[in-house]
């Protein structure tokens, strides 16, 4: 394909952009306050819908004029529901409020919109520099981030294509269509972008291979299968700013010479499916997709395919199998999908984040992108930092930032004065890194060297109360179920690993178990065809390497040092601390295992106790009488 008719494209896009700007200016200039509510899945889960209803009610009730606008997720999941209120007349800058419950919403509408009092006690910060309210950018959770991929998430309404365009969206596609495809591929190669789907394969090289492969019907697939059970950034991106992904897909399709593209989204993500489908419709309506994109000779159709929930279908050859209507079983590579993929034709498969990185790269150039991150891993990394961490949520940082900075400075460290123990990176294929590795820079190669991997970008922070053996067991339980069954080592090997780990967590470990875990793990790695089997033993191997003493305590002393493995722990009530006549724990127990002793204190019937820990939560802090011990025979007998 040669560069397309410049003038037509420019003109066609100009019309759309002017309309988008006109709409935005009209909205901005309207002299009424604006209320912006985050409405992605996490927001809705925290009650954003109720918050929105409360705002609507109070506005109607008190006849306050204001616009309510819904946007996607800005990644501050710990603060949901998040509301930004812009009330220029009050003299205050736009203000970011956190945890806005319906009650708070009504209060804010009354005092801020009516009386001009922004209620400082609920403010997280101001969105702009000013003299009245501290800026959010003064907090590390905001100012240490570098947003390239998530830049517009939480700022634009994902269901309105004009908002994305007014913010500079699709400009790059218009520019791309005026370049030769190989110029684009060169730029991407130059940028050093590596695939964000886990393996870090150079994207430019993949595109180049696809461009040069023989085939009339090439396809671009956006991999949004996101099977890692602790990562959700792909979903958030699709829910909050689908057009950036679609734009990246269109640029890719133009560069490699494809006319068909597919977004492969998990069916478990209904909101993402809905929003992407709507976005495709809007883009087609404006002529940004479909026949003759922006009046050029480039055609592109994008479809949505709903994945049916199999972890292995994130693997590219299995993904293709499932689109073709088969069981999602990986096959041998080569041939690689760029040579023979969907329907035997060359197919580019890229992760959501990889594709969303493309528009900014083409817009600002490869040199700009290379200036972010490290030499070998340019650009940013997105993590969903969750688990035992204060400011959980999505974080986008430049590659090369250390784990310590990410977990402690940006995300606020471990809550409840607990000690940090480990961080699990990369989901079921990744590993657990202990405190000594906190100064590891986050990039593809350093993480692999440390024994973890970038993987999907899931990051689970664990405190001292998390048992490493149990976490390994958890991951093996997952991979064992998800193994497609093609390779014997993966199918049966993971089953054996799981069995052994289950025995150990129940205190039935034997001598030699740990050595066997190690050798079997190596065998599974060597004997498996796809990445699932090759990486499934990683959680076991890294935790054995860094937390062997914990395994040994389980096997040799029947003791769980973190007091998490339930067979190995017991709860009891310290009679010296227990308050006579207090019944808090009794009501909290789901199985009625707590009885009253002769002197009107409480005891735990060990034969009934299911070790859920509710009584520990229920016991008033001033008594703090519920104790948890391992091994269980440390609990005194009470009658």
């Amino acid at each position, binding site marked *: 394909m040669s560069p397309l008719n410049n003038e037509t494209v420019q003109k066609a896009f100009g019309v759309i952009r002017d309309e988008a700007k006109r709409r935005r200016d009209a909205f901005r200039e309207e002299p009424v306050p604006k209320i912006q509510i985050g409405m992605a*899945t*996490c927001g*809705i*889960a*925290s009650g954003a819908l109720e918050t929105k209803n409360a705002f609507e009610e109070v506005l109607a009730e008190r006849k306050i004029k204001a616009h309510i606008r819904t946007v996607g997720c800005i990644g501050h*999941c*710990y603060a*949901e529901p998040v509301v930004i209120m812009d009330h220029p007349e009050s003299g205050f800058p736009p203000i970011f409020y956190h945890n806005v419950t319906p009650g708070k919403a009504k209060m804010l509408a009354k005092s801020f919109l009516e009386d001009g009092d922004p209620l400082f006690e609920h403010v997280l910060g101001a969105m702009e520099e000013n003299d009245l309210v501290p800026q959010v950018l003064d907090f590390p959770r905001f100012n240490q981030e570098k947003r390239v991929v998530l830049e517009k998430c939480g700022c634009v309404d994902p269901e309105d294509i004009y908002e994305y365009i007014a913010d500079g969206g699709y400009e790059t596609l218009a520019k791309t269509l005026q370049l030769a495809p190989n110029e684009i591929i060169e730029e991407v190669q130059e940028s050093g972008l590596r695939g964000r789907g886990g393996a870090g394969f150079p994207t430019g090289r993949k595109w180049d291979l696809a461009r040069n492969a023989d085939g009339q019907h090439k396809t671009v697939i956006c991999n949004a299968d996101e*099977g*890692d*059970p*602790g*990562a*959700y950034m792909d*979903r*958030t991106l699709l829910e909050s700013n689908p057009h950036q992904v679609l734009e990246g897909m269109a640029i890719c399709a133009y560069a490699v010479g494809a006319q068909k593209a597919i977004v492969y989204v998990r*069916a*478990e*993500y209904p909101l993402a499916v809905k929003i992407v489908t709507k976005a495709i419709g809007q883009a087609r309506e404006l002529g940004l997709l479909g026949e003759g994109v922006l009046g050029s000779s480039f055609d592109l159709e994008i479809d949505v*395919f*709903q994945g*049916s*929930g*199999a972890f292995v279908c994130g693997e590219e050859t299995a993904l293709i199998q*499932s*689109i*073709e*209507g*088969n*069981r*999602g079983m990986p096959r041998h590579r080569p041939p690689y999908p760029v040579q023979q993929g969907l329907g035997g034709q060359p197919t580019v498969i890229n992760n959501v984040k990889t594709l969303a990185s493309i528009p900014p790269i083409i817009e600002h150039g490869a040199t700009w992108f290379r200036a972010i991150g490290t030499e070998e891993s340019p650009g940013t990394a997105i993590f*969903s930092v*969750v*688990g*035992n961490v204060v400011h*959980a*949520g999505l974080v986008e940082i430049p590659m090369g930032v250390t784990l310590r900075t990410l977990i402690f400075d940006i995300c606020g460290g471990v809550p409840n004065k607990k000690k940090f123990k480990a961080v*699990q990176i990369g*989901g079921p294929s990744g590993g657990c890194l202990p405190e000594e590795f906190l100064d590891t820079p986050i990039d593809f190669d350093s993480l692999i060297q440390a024994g973890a991997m970038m993987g999907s970008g*899931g990051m*689970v922070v*664990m405190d001292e109360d*998390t048992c490493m053996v149990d*976490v390994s067991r*958890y*991951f093996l339980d*997952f991979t064992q179920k998800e193994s*497609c069954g093609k390779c014997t080592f993966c199918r049966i090997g993971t089953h054996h690993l799981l069995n052994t780990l289950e025995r150990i967590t129940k205190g039935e470990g034997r001598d030699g178990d740990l050595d066997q875990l190690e050798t079997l793990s190596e065998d599974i790695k060597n004997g498996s065809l796809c990445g699932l089997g090759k990486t499934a033993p990683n959680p076991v191997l890294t935790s054995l390497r860094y937390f062997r003493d914990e395994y040994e305590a389980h096997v040799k002393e029947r003791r769980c040092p973190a007091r998490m493995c339930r067979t190995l722990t017991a709860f009891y009530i310290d009679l010296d601390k227990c308050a006579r006549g207090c019944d808090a724990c009794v009501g*909290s127990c*789901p*199985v009625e295992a707590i009885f009253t002793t002769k002197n009107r204190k409480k005891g735990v019937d060990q034969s009934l106790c*299911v070790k*859920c*820990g*509710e009584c520990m*939560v229920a016991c008033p802090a001033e008594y703090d009488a519920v104790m948890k011990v391992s091994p269980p025979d440390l609990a005194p007998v009470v009658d």
Partner: protein
Amino acid sequence: MIQENSLEEEKLILDDIASRLKAFGREREELIPILQMIQERHAYIAEDAIKMAAEYLGIAICEVYGVATFYNQFRFHPPGKNHIKVCLGTACHVRGGDIILENFERKLEIRDGETTPDREFSIERVACVGCCALAPVSVVNETVQGHMAPSKVEGLILGFKIEKEKAEREKKKSEPAQ
């Protein structure tokens, strides 16, 4: 035993599927979208529905069954009126998701993947619903419930039971006394 659908119900379901199948092509690639359509409309895939899909695409029944059982999404028994998904993703596991699952199981006296005999409740374990910051999480009838605790489990189920009783009472009231 779980109450089965009545024959009339079954026939309605199959008629609906038959009429909707026409919108699909007959290529193999349509298989998963067809199965998804069936489940979306009827919440599960009945044996006869599998036969219909196989006939429509001209492939063996065991092929369809093989594909359908490979994927976690598909169910082969009708779920309860209130479907409870308990997240056991990594973040939820670390925050005690299995305790929540156990509490649902104990309260409803069924295991995960099962439906109560009166078809009021069913439980399913899922991996990460994307709200890890609120762990542990459960999804009850599409509403995400964050920061779950055993006491919240009890409250939720009690809420449904009270609602049901109320509905039944109202129904009785509106029926003319005999």
